[in-house]
């Protein structure tokens, strides 16, 4: 299971050009995935603080959900986002960000996923996402 999951994840992350644009990667411990977004200048939305762009935070959370789904529901095609709600709790500072996805429900066609992101303190998340995703099948 673990090797397969690692392979699925690697395939997903390698295939999507936008993942490389963000510079994100993911670590897998058993079936638990942690997405990692190192800080980079091109991700900044507020140069005064400086802080990560709200859209970058949303995109990182969304890609984390899709990466977790790529492990749980392997498919040659990318699953599709139906809707997402992003909650901004604190500014995303100029630090490495981490995120974990919680698959609340994976149905036959639709998945409901919650994601939480933090930086230096796991108990102080700076953003969260709830979303629905349409699952692609290989057929």
């Amino acid at each position, binding site marked *: 299971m673990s090797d397969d999951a690692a392979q699925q994840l690697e395939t997903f992350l390698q295939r999507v*050009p*936008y993942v490389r644009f963000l510079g994100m990667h993911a670590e897998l411990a058993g079936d638990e995935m942690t997405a990692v977004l190192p800080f980079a200048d*091109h991700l900044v*939305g507020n140069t005064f603080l400086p802080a990560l762009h*709200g*859209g970058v935070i949303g*995109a990182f959370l969304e890609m984390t959900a899709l990466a977790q789904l790529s492990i749980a529901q392997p498919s040659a095609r990318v699953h599709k986002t*139906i809707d997402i*709600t*992003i909650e901004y709790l604190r500014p995303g500072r100029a630090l490495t960000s981490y995120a974990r996805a919680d698959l609340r429900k994976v149905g036959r066609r639709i998945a409901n996923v919650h994601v939480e992101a933090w930086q230096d303190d796991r108990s102080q998340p700076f953003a969260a996402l709830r979303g629905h995703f349409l699952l692609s099948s290989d057929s």
Partner: protein
Amino acid sequence: MTDAPDYMREMSQRMVGGTPQSAALGFRFVSVAHARGSLEVPWREDLVGDPDTGVIAGGVVTSLLDHTCGMAMAAAAGAEPFSTATLDLRIDYMRPAAPRAGVIAEAHCYKLTRTIGFVRAEAWDVDKSDLIATAQAAFVLNRPHT
């Protein structure tokens, strides 16, 4: 859109060219007016989210919608200095963009209180009557002198 005040045009220029994420994604200014803003992002190979189809990533649309909502918020807030932070952003994806197509977004801050702005936005690729995504956002407005 030609009658937008100077401060609004300057704010738009700052938001498009002066924000690293906006510059990195290649956002372009489309228009600004009171409580309204419009931006576009041209298609680019490295912004693709689905390598099978060449469709631009949802995350790029998320950034564009967030940024355009912030611009509408700024265009509603007036010439006095302020800062904003996004409280939440909901995005509905109606359909994927066309392969190798850029995206245009338009946002309207339809209500601004002393502290909170409520914004709606729409995004499309080719035809404005055939949307790819809609967004609803709430922003908090901070004015340093109050």
